């Protein structure tokens, strides 16, 4: 039996060329979903295969890679993807947002403002923002072609009629460069404003659905809304219990079965950076001190 040998960053060169061509078109047509012949990856569909293929197609030996899931570098899927690239491409990895040149993410945009020398790669499960209104690809493609987005506005307006608000809390649809309605992937709507006029290039990969799309740097990204019901980002109204941040997106941690809750930054790098800079929240632990093995607990 022949032991399989894999290429740099796993994908073969022909596949990379195909993905690279799709990326260039995606950048040239902001918000348009470019079909691409997504490959079977050695991780399941739905677990980041689109993002992984985009990252594999752009990654080079000089890159510094950061991978987050739910804002955290330390969730199991983020670790698994980071290890995949460390192994197949031998690239340097980091958890510091500032230091990364390529950041692959699932469900969050980092709190630290991105800069020009960065590419943010999103993992996307369902790239079609109109899919839940119209399941047929042939129909949604026609709607995008004609920029016929009335159905989306009707849906949002029905929410307002029923609930008094637009009842979309994540994967909140946006319009890119005043043309294409786009799914930002299941990020909380808190993150939507970060996509607008962002200095970094944003690439989106949907492996199972075989689509790549992009937002070039410094591009207008508007969350869909109505004049009398403007878009509002949601954030739980509390400071982070660990670093005291008042403007970061928070995870809700259930601390007991009696209604106990605490709220901490979902962006772990941001939170740790603030703590290292001396910021403290109401429940901060004392600064971590390394203990010698076998040392007393005193």
């Amino acid at each position, binding site marked *: 039996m022949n032991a399989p040998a894999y290429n740099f960053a796993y994908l073969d*060169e022909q596949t990379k060329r195909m993905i690279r061509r799709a990326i260039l*078109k995606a950048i040239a*047509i*902001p918000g348009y979903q470019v079909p691409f012949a997504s490959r079977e990856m050695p991780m399941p569909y739905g677990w980041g295969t689109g993002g992984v293929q985009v990252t594999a197609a*752009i990654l080079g030996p000089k890159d510094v890679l950061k991978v987050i899931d739910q804002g955290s570098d330390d969730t199991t899927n983020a670790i698994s993807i980071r290890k995949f690239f460390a192994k197949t491409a031998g690239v340097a990895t980091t958890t510091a947002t500032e230091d990364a040149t390529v950041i692959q993410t699932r469900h969050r945009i980092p709190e630290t403002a991105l800069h020009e020398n960065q590419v943010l790669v999103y993992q996307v499960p369902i790239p079609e923002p109109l899919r839940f209104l119209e399941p047929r690809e042939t129909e949604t493609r026609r709607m995008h072609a004609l920029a016929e987005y009335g159905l989306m506005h009707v849906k949002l307006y029905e929410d307002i009629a029923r609930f008094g608000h637009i009842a979309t809390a994540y994967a909140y649809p946006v319009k890119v460069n005043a043309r294409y309605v786009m799914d930002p992937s299941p990020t909380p709507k808190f993150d939507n404003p970060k996509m607008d006029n962002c200095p970094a290039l944003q690439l989106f990969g949907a492996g199972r659905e075989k689509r790549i799309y992009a937002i*070039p740097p410094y591009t207008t990204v508007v969350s869909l809304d109505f004049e009398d019901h403007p878009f509002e980002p949601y954030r739980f109204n509390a400071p982070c219990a660990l670093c005291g941040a008042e403007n970061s997106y928070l995870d809700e941690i259930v601390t007991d079965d009696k209604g106990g809750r605490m709220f901490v930054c979902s962006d772990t790098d941001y939170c740790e950076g603030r703590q290292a800079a001396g910021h403290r929240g109401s429940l901060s632990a004392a600064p971590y001190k390394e203990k010698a093995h076998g040392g007393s607990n005193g």
Partner: protein
Amino acid sequence: MTTIAELPPGFVDKVLSAQSTFRSVMDAMARPGSVQRIVPMAGAPAMMMRGTAAIALTLFDHDTPIWLDARMTESSDVVKWLKFHTGAPVVQDCSIASFALISDGAALPALERFALGSNEYPDRSTTLIVQVDSLAAGRGFELRGPGIDSVATLQAAIRPADLFERLRVNEALFPRGIDVVLVADDAVVAIPRTTRVVNKES
């Protein structure tokens, strides 16, 4: 007649050179008007600048029909080199080309003759790779659009001189349209279909 053994070589390190070249082109496309450098060296047949050669080695293959302008077509070395290193089919009909290589800008066909994509599939369009005299000196242009922090300026010596006026068809065509990559030696600048260009000076 050149034999295959005499053809200029491709990349020394196919994988890493293609990656590096792609990142330059991607950055160019993401930041229209910015001048990006192509670092990896490859041999290039006469008529073809080394930047063009590197882009060809990076993006062309069996799945991308290539259209060559008359001057490039005349050079049998270009055709042989492309065939040998990329396997890309060279086509006569520019309306089915994924990429078009232009070495003689003065003879650039009407843009409408290239593939412009459809409203359903605007990505099915030809990307023009146009070799120009300079991307450092020449006329000044002001560029606006996605990828540009308010305004970008470009100094370039380009033929045809009215290229940017002609590219204004992109405005009415969008999302259909033509994306252009300008090459001068190892320098590249991209003008995607969303970029609006005005002459700063004549």
